[in-house]
């Protein structure tokens, strides 16, 4: 097979064109939002939400509602409950997330098993991008538009909150509202990504491109742009591997992401040095 065929051939089939569109949209939005998740140290929460939405999807299947609606509601509930449990002085945010992730996720699996929808489990876990329909593409497109609008209106404010919460509050911004906007965006992006790579692989799409971008960028918005581009590119390359090597699309995309992060780490390895801030940061953590 010629190189041109290798590139062009997959575009011949309708389901692959839809899959490419889905991968580009979800990769770009997850990559961009993942930068906030990464820098605000919310990785475990992102991992948690990407699992607990399986409960939302299972309940939506049971009640005949759209999967996306169930996913977004459970994602919001996860974020809210995590905050509520972590608000107890005896339990940390880490513990709160560690409680909700497996229990709500298991609840979803139990609902699927009891209601006889167990066959849907594997596509929820590992994604089913080759079966993407119009509705999925519309959801992914709406999420991408929402991200662009929110970044356009409040991008610099969201960055300020991520960098220095106390100052953002002192500047007069309603930090809780900005947090809610960000978490809602993450929730809908993750729910859209459920179709592309599946629940248990979403963390790869959400955290991998931002990690790679962080390793090569020194300022925030270039990092967001690069992570977004990398997310889309990894989706594209992953789908080519799926087509040509007959491996699952979700795993293929995540393995491409991992390769990119590895390359970024190698290219940045020469520049890594002990930051002057490490002592300070650790002091704050102890406090």
């Amino acid at each position, binding site marked *: 097979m010629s190189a041109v065929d290798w590139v062009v051939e997959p575009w011949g089939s309708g389901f692959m064109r839809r899959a490419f569109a889905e991968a580009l949209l979800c990769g770009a939005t997850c990559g961009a939002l993942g930068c906030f998740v990464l820098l605000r140290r919310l990785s475990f929460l992102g991992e948690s939400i990407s699992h607990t939405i399986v409960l939302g999807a299972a309940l939506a299947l049971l009640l005949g509602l759209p999967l996306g609606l169930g996913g977004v509601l459970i994602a919001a509930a996860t974020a809210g409950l995590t905050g509520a449990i972590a608000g107890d002085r005896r339990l940390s945010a880490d513990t709160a997330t560690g409680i909700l992730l497996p229990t709500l996720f298991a609840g979803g699996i139990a609902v699927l098993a009891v209601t006889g929808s167990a066959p849907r489990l594997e596509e929820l876990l590992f994604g089913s991008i080759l079966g993407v329909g119009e509705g999925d593409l519309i959801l992914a497109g709406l999420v991408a538009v929402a991200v662009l609008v929110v970044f356009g209106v409040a991008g610099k404010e969201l960055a300020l909150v991520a960098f220095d919460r106390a100052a953002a509050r002192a500047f007069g911004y309603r930090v809780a509202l900005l947090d809610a906007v960000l978490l809602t965006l993450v929730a809908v992006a993750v729910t859209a990504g459920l179709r592309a790579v599946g629940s*248990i692989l979403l963390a790869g799409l959400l955290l991998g491109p931002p990690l790679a971008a962080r390793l090569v960028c020194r300022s925030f918005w270039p990092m967001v742009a690069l992570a977004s581009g990398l997310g889309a590119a990894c989706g594209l390359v992953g789908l080519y591997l799926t087509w040509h090597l007959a491996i699952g699309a979700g795993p293929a995309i995540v393995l491409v992401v991992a390769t990119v992060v590895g390359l970024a780490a190698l290219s940045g390895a020469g520049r890594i040095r002990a*930051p002057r801030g490490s002592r300070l940061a650790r002091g704050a953590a102890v406090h």
Partner: protein
Amino acid sequence: MLEALDAPYLQRALLAGLVLSIPLGLLGCWIVLRELAFFAHAVGVATFPGVVVGLALPALGPFAGALLAALGFSAAISASEADHRLRGGAATGLALAVALAAGAVLLTARGGGAAPVDRLLFGSLLAVSSADVVLCLVGAAVAVGVLAVLLPRLAATTFDRTWAGPAGAGERVSASALLVLVSLVVVCALPAVGSLLVSALLVVPAATARLITERLAPMLAWATGLCALETVAGLLLARALDLPPGAAIAVVTGLGFGVIAAASAAASRLTRVAPA
């Protein structure tokens, strides 16, 4: 319900679960107090590709494969946390997605067969062999023995990590030993509960115990007791409703936490009203 207890496979699962509750409950307390829940979740997930490789290579076997994967993962994550740009769990999150993707690809490459993916992820009542029960006994004994030695140091350094100053090397050893023990116990629990939900048993009973008591010794006891109780209830529920045992146990632990958290919230509201 009770005649089901005659089934040897269920007896083996219950025995393994009860034996492992002791180290799971004890280790869980340190995981909650030292905020290692993300690590506990990730180390469970990391065993998945190890099990798949172990099943493919009879010379290795799933137990050794999973243990090697868990230990290698712990070491890699400790190294990545040293880079300030990667701190905060993002590398952990990516690594476990990669572990699952790699496991899934390897499983496809082997052409399915003996072990369906959901059995590896969520466990199976039928998967616990007599040899697994023996491994659980040995693993639990090792974990409890080492924990008994570590207990005083862990107690001191968990409440004040900076105290470790003069004994920094000792703190590093006990922290690493803790991670190794978690890996060992997680791997022992895999056949019954699977890699994706094993962290529920480490985190949730201990967090529930934290709500019940303010002191360490009762917390360790409560965590172990709750862990045993919830494991047994979860296994019987899995048998009754034909659920994957990992999912059933995780749901039961979640219900247990919900009940105690609600009771604790109600109690603290009462005490707040009383003196006012």
